[in-house]
């Protein structure tokens, strides 16, 4: 092979290295233009690899690191038409006169100079700071920037806003909402948002687990943050003879490729089936009573906290000895979830007699009404099986599969959660403004203050922080009137049109978006600033750098990448760091932000903190480094120490044990029907059992991630669009709405038909794809397609087909302000394209679409 960097390309290119959220890559450039992007590939000579050997079969991490599907299209991303190349100002936004907030999303933009842009922003910031104070300015980061240590939200963005002060418009851990608000009450782990890290899970599962259950989990396609060698690992487990079972409404990609069994279940009924599994175990003695006696609280009445009456335990609930008097038999569950009792029993018996790896974390089932019950129930099942025992663990779609990791070989601490550039600066600034707006209350706060809520933080460091009531405006703070979005979207808001409506509120006087692409919420901004892509700047990072947030969560050859500057910035685009440096200067903060540094000096200083045994210049030149495998490595799997010695290694719960009965929830809520102290199955308000609403909207909507798009990114990239868009007779690429042949036929629909999907929250157009991969009664409309409203009205039909227009923005329960996104009923019917086009000629011509800057 030789050094992969030394190959002689026929076109004589220069080869750079880069690291994206889709994986690390080589970037070949000629004459300032990208020729190709290739997955990064290490020379076997420079790699000292670990491997896993089980039963004569070996897994060795690959030398060529796989890219996620959109990563392979990054050349197109770099030069797409939607790139923002110059600062833009909405034509009829005049800070000295009419601001015309009602025209956001309607009028077009004009090019302005950077100097004009800075001047406008500084004037507006100074105005708001003088009249309302810093809390009158709200800032928000998009969840999905590229990996980096310097150019990353926790680094340059937070430093600036913490320095000048502002109201943090925060998003929640919405990838695993129900885990974040439920699981910490069961097993602690507030720092990890309820997701326990899973070190050495690759070895443990490979060696010890006999059964793997994917419960609402599709790691193959959704290992988004891990960027790992998922397919080969699952093939390895299959080759080792693991039994793999999928419990899902949708036969997902991991299931299609590797599972032995698909158990079809209706969305939101998982808790009923889980309860029936517990019932089977209890009545047949297929669980670990000894472990429960020493490691858990509240499984049975004998182990309830002091003063709690008998009949309050999980076992009492399951056996029907509690208040509801209903034994949670497989027959009872079957009526709810649609799975045959014999299949529930068969699964329970296998699970109860074999070391089982349960893949349940993240996934759609945790983003629903009462999802904290689902997560506590799933955790409780594994606790009944001796969580921490060899082969018994909890995993998720990402962040929870790990090979050997010794906590030394990493770029950190300047990583995801560690403050980036702040670590190497002289001064550090905590944000002086305590006020926050959770994105799920953005509409209410802006339009209808005061507001009060619970939950909704990006981070919760304790139960008290989670349960604290939030007020808006907070005492001593003002209402927000200036909104700054770092990235073009305020994450992925449910009930999107009602969210967009907020942008037209006169209560927002200034709305700034900084983004590389004119996508998503850009269309509603007053000022848009052009930001560089990952190919146009330098950084130091690790693939799946989010692994520094849950540090062990990377499987593969531990490596660091120098993100080299491959091409010059498009147009006049700048890095966020440059923008914030200039703004700080103009706002009168002098050098306080950048402290005399440049991108290069900051990277040098951050590099000094890594354990990479090269000089900075060597690393920068070479572009990557692969750490050797750890020496004298001792494994320690998830919950292993707790399993072995619960007294010596208590969990971060009040009792130190797994709290199947949460005294904390009991003290806070009593026996609340929406969040009882032991996990229950609670029927959703908008779900499979909502008979009345189902008469109007009979289909349950599934909102699994898009396969060829990164959430809402790259909806415009033709190389990806042609993989999934349904091209109508009008030539337009409609977002697919997948449905079972039974449901299609009942509506007179065939594959390729253009339809309207609707519920009380909105209407979107889509193209039908007929598939047997869905249980009848459930249709899959993904989220993140860019808005293309047919008229000026934000509530008009969205031709773009974003599932979030229909998604549920209700609270999960009294316990949590949001996170019920996926509890959605809707109906699908054939669209009359000719009539729509006649009614909305301008809309069909694209006048209001997201990516139209002209207006």
């Amino acid at each position, binding site marked *: 092979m030789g050094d992969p960097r030394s190959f002689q390309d026929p076109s004589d290119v220069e080869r750079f290295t880069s690291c994206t959220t889709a994986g690390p890559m080589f970037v070949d450039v000629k004459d300032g233009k990208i020729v190709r*992007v290739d997955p990064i590939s290490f020379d076997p000579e420079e790699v000292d690899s670990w491997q896993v050997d089980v039963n004569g079969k070996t897994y060795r991490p690959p030398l060529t690191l796989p890219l996620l*599907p959109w990563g392979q299209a990054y050349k197109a991303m770099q030069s797409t038409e939607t790139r923002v190349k110059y600062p833009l100002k909405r034509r009829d936004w005049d800070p000295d006169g009419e601001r015309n907030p009602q025209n956001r999303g309607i009028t077009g933009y004009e090019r302005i100079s950077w100097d004009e842009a800075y001047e406008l922003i500084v004037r507006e910031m100074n105005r708001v700071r003088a009249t309302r104070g810093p809390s009158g300015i709200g800032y928000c980061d998009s969840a999905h920037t590229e990996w980096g240590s310097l150019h990353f939200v926790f680094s340059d963005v937070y430093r600036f806003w913490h320095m000048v002060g502002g109201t943090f418009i925060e998003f929640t851990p919405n990838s695993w909402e129900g885990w974040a608000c439920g699981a910490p009450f069961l097993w602690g782990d507030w720092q990890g948002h309820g997701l326990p890290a899973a070190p050495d899970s690759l070895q443990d599962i490979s060696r010890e687990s006999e059964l793997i259950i994917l419960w609402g989990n599709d790691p193959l396609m959704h290992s988004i943050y891990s960027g790992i060698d998922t397919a*080969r690992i699952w093939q390895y487990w299959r080759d080792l003879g693991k039994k793999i079972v999928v419990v899902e409404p949708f036969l997902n990609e991991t299931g299609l490729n590797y599972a032995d069994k698909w158990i079809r279940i209706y969305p939101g009924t998982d808790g009923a089936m889980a309860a029936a599994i517990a019932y089977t175990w209890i009545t047949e003695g297929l669980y670990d009573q000894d472990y429960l006696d020493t490691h858990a609280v509240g499984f049975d009445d004998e182990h309830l906290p002091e003063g709690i009456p008998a009949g309050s335990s999980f076992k009492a609930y399951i056996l029907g000895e509690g208040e509801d008097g209903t034994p949670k038999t497989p027959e009872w569950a079957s009526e709810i979830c649609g799975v045959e009792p014999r299949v529930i029993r068969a699964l329970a*018996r296998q699970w109860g007699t074999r070391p089982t790896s349960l893949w349940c974390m993240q996934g759609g089932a945790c983003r629903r009404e009462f999802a904290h019950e689902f997560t506590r129930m799933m955790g409780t099942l594994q606790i009944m099986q001796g969580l921490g025992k060899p082969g018994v663990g909890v995993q998720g779609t990402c962040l929870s599969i790990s090979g050997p990791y010794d906590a030394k070989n990493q770029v950190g601490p300047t990583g995801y959660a560690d403050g980036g550039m702040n670590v190497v600066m002289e001064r550090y600034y905590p944000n002086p403004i305590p006020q926050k707006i959770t994105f799920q209350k953005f509409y209410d706060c802006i339009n209808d203050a005061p507001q009060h809520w619970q939950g909704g933080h990006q981070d919760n460091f304790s139960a008290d922080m989670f349960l604290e009531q939030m007020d808006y405006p907070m005492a001593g703070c003002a209402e927000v009137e200036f909104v700054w979005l770092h990235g073009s979207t305020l994450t992925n808001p449910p009930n999107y049109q009602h969210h967009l409506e907020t942008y037209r509120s006169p209560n927002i006087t200034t709305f700034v978006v900084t983004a590389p692409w004119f996508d998503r919420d850009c269309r509603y901004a007053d000022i848009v600033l052009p930001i560089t892509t990952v190919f146009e700047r330098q950084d130091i990072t690790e693939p799946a750098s989010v692994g520094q947030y849950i540090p062990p969560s990377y499987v593969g050859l531990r490596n660091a990448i120098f993100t080299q500057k491959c091409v010059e910035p498009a147009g006049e685009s700048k890095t966020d760091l440059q923008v914030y440096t200039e703004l700080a200067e103009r706002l009168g903060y002098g050098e306080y932000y950048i402290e005399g540094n440049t991108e290069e000096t900051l990277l040098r200083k951050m590099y000094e903190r890594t354990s990479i045994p090269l000089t900075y210049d060597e690393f920068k030149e070479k572009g990557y480094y692969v750490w050797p495998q750890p020496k004298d490595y001792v494994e320690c799997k998830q919950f292993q120490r707790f399993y072995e010695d619960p007294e010596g290694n208590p969990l971060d719960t009040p009792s130190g044990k797994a709290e199947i009965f949460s005294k904390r929830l009991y003290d806070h809520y009593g026996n609340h029907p929406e969040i009882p102290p032991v996990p229950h199955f609670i029927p959703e308000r908008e779900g499979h059992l909502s008979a009345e609403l189902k008469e109007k909207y009979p289909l349950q909507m599934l909102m699994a991630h898009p396969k*060829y798009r990164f959430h809402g990114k790259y909806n415009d990239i033709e190389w990806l669009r042609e993989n999934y868009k349904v091209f109508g007779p009008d030539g337009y690429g409609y977002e697919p709405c997948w449905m079972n042949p039974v449901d299609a036929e009942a509506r007179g629909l065939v594959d390729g038909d253009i339809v309207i999907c609707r519920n009380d929250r909105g209407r979107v157009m889509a193209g039908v794809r007929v598939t047997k*991969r869905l249980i009848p009664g459930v249709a899959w409309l993904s989220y993140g397609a860019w808005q293309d409203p047919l008229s000026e009205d934000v509530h008009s039909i969205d031709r773009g087909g974003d599932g979030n227009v229909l998604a549920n923005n209700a609270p999960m329960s009294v316990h949590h302000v949001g996170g019920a996104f996926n509890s959605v009923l809707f109906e699908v019917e054939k669209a009359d394209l000719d009539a729509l086009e006649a009614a909305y000629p301008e809309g069909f011509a694209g006048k209001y679409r997201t990516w139209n800057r002209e207006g």
Partner: protein
Amino acid sequence: MKTLLINAGKCIDCRNCQTACKDEFCDNDWSPLAAPQGPRQYWIRIVNEEAGDGDRVRMQRVPLVCQQCADAPCLAAAADGAAYRRADGVVIFDPEKAQGQRAIMDACPYGAVYWNEARNIPQKCTLCAHLLDAGRQPRCVTACPTDALRLVDAADYADDALLPQPIERLRPELGTGPRVLYQDLPRPFIAGETCTGDGAAVLPGVKVTATHQVLGRVYEAVTDEFGDFSLDGVEPGYYAIAFEGAGLTRKTLSNMDAREALNVGSVRLYPLA
């Protein structure tokens, strides 16, 4: 001669192969081996077909690419030497000479050749000949995260007796001598479950024997702990399927249509009288 070895069963439809192909060939001019690839062309394309029914559904996938046929119809259809075979076996269309020659595209029975309207030429996979010449692998191969695609020496696979899966060709009946090697191409399967007469319990350990009613070929399986069985890769046709378990009355289902994948659903078995 180098050729692709494609393990169809390993394809996860990530389409990294297809996108890498576009990355390599769109906007890049590798003439005289290839002019820039036109839009909506898929020099490698994943064909997805759902098989089975109910909760026994599978996705059968075939990466489709130029087969570099031994008796390539495109070569025969080309005039003025517009299509030729290199010494390494790769069939190339000359972007200059192939202008206007739609017959080259029409000749391909695999649908692996595309028409570039703007350039007025047929286009297809070159096996990344320009990279092969530089000692590199085709882009689809290095982009594949499952090892479903590999570049191999055809001679090494002349005898597949020792391989875990036999070597197949894609639609050899077309008679063009396709040279791309495949493994694990889709075939029908017969799947189902066995349960007690009242449907209350699954029945593990039941022996399932499917006999092809014309060829007499026999496939066997034993139901697992879900009472499930699956007979994979069966010869298409009609089957008699027998179920036998300890203490159970033998049951046979005849004339079961497995010309395509078949989910026989739940088969109820009763105790011996």
